[in-house]
């Protein structure tokens, strides 16, 4: 289980850091393996910040990140490295997700090498995963600007799946994609969660995507998690007035 316990994060800006912005306030959330948890809220509510904190790309100002029972919050980087492999993050903008100077295959090989997969096994692994994520192998010699957003997202998934992660943080993974490409990728993620028992935190502002994908949902506003519950509860009988408002507006 990936647990975020009473996470707060403040950003300081301006002269001598005098402007304090509370991006996340006392947010607690847990993701079981094999479960997809949605995190919704409008732009600027702190949902991406919380997602980055979950994989320690950002350090929380206070609170704890607990991964399968181990508190990794203040763990030194060297020790944490093993845990990081188990939690991977996928970002919203496919066009900036990969190094523009690398071809897709170079980016994929880079992460294979990081994992320590021997050269001889890489080809087989690439074939396996690319079939799983539906990445056509005839395009992997191209640079990111020569392929579509959906194809980059598949290359990113190939890299990520090679780590055999237990948890995935998905930060608006399909909001820039066409609806039929989105359907492909979402189906693929859903299957991955159930088949390989991967816990996912799915960050999105698209209620329909959340409803179709998730088992549980948490709703966030101005840095706070207002409520969470099963998809059914949240969509049929939300308690917070904000969730009700979101539902009305998406109808």
């Amino acid at each position: 289980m990936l647990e975020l316990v009473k996470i707060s994060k403040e950003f300081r800006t301006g002269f001598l850091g005098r402007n304090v912005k509370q991006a996340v306030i006392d947010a607690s959330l847990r993701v079981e393996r094999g479960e997809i948890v949605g995190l919704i809220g409008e732009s600027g509510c702190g949902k991406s910040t919380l997602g980055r904190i979950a994989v320690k790309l950002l350090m929380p100002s206070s609170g704890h990140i607990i991964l399968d029972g181990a508190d990794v919050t203040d763990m030194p980087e060297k020790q944490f490295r093993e845990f990081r492999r188990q939690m991977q993050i996928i970002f919203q903008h496919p066009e900036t997700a990969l190094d523009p100077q690398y071809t897709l295959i170079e980016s994929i090989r880079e992460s294979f090498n990081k994992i320590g997969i021997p050269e001889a096994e890489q080809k087989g692994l690439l074939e396996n995963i690319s079939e799983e994520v539906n990445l056509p192998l005839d395009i992997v010699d191209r640079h990111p600007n020569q392929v579509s957003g959906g194809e980059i997202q598949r290359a990113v998934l190939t890299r990520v799946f090679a780590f055999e992660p237990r948890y995935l943080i998905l930060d608006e993974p399909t909001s820039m994609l066409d609806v039929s490409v989105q359907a492909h990728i979402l189906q693929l993620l859903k299957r991955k969660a159930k088949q390989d028992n991967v816990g996912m935190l799915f960050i999105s502002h698209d209620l329909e995507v959340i409803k179709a994908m998730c088992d549980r949902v948490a709703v966030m506003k101005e840095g706070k998690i207002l409520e969470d519950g099963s998809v059914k509860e949240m969509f049929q009988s939300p308690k917070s007035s904000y969730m009700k408002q979101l539902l009305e507006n998406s109808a």
Partner: protein
Amino acid sequence: MSQGGLLVVRGLSVAFKTQKGTVQAIDGIDLDLNENETLAIVGESGCGKSVLGHAIMRLLDDIAVVRGSVRFREKEVYEMDTTALLNLRGGLISLVPQSPSSSFNPVITIGKQIEELIEKAGKEKGNGARKRALEYLSLAGFSEPELIHKSYPHRLSGGMCERALIAMALSVEPELVIADEPTKGLDALSRKNILGLLHKLAKDASMIMITHDLKAAETCERLAVMYSGEIIEEGPTGIVLNHPRHVYTKGLIDAQPSRGMTPIKGRHNLFSHNAEGCRFKERCDAASNECNNHPMLSKVEDYRKVRCCHA
């Protein structure tokens, strides 16, 4: 087919010459738009919908080879001289471009940019232009229009920039608004606001909304679906979305998360233009020998056209 409509497009084709050969972006587009009518053009990335929007305003640069005719108020856009063209763009036809945050000039305040357009379009001058800019900013839902007026674009969020762009495009009271992906990347609340705003401010104008979002398209009266540079289905929005006749339109509808997220098989081949016959046939379950002949966009019911031999 109404003669003397506001906009009449006939056989419009655009090809781009690239190092790797010619790419046909749009091919043989026919389109009619009446006064006060709203039309949504939907399709996936690379289908040519934005190129179509730009071609109508003659905004494409020299590497584009344009054939066919675009008539606005019975005047041929591709035969206009510079003066007439400048009067057309930003005066009679306004574009709300894609990617709001990068569409404004980053080193000039929002207000100055709106005023510049109002003055260039010859609507108002000096203080009058300022007044009108403020008026449209407040119509666009800004509670403090003065603050937005003197802000630089980087201080505004994506949704705010989009609203400011709409205010700018509508401030010249155009006869036709072309909105290119007005809801891309916005959350549900902002999307609803933006669509409401567009329809409110453009209520005396015609509108072409270019989008890949079927939800946004629902707010328009008529719908044209594009695939591989062609219109493949066209008709009243409600009828097309509730009873699609083309397999691709059905596929788009079923791919929506609320409709079961069924992906369309295969992938969108950007070069399928060169293929013979129906451009969708490789992805279509109903494909047969007949599909090797290129289908025409033909009338199936009143007000309704489909490009498929099985429809």
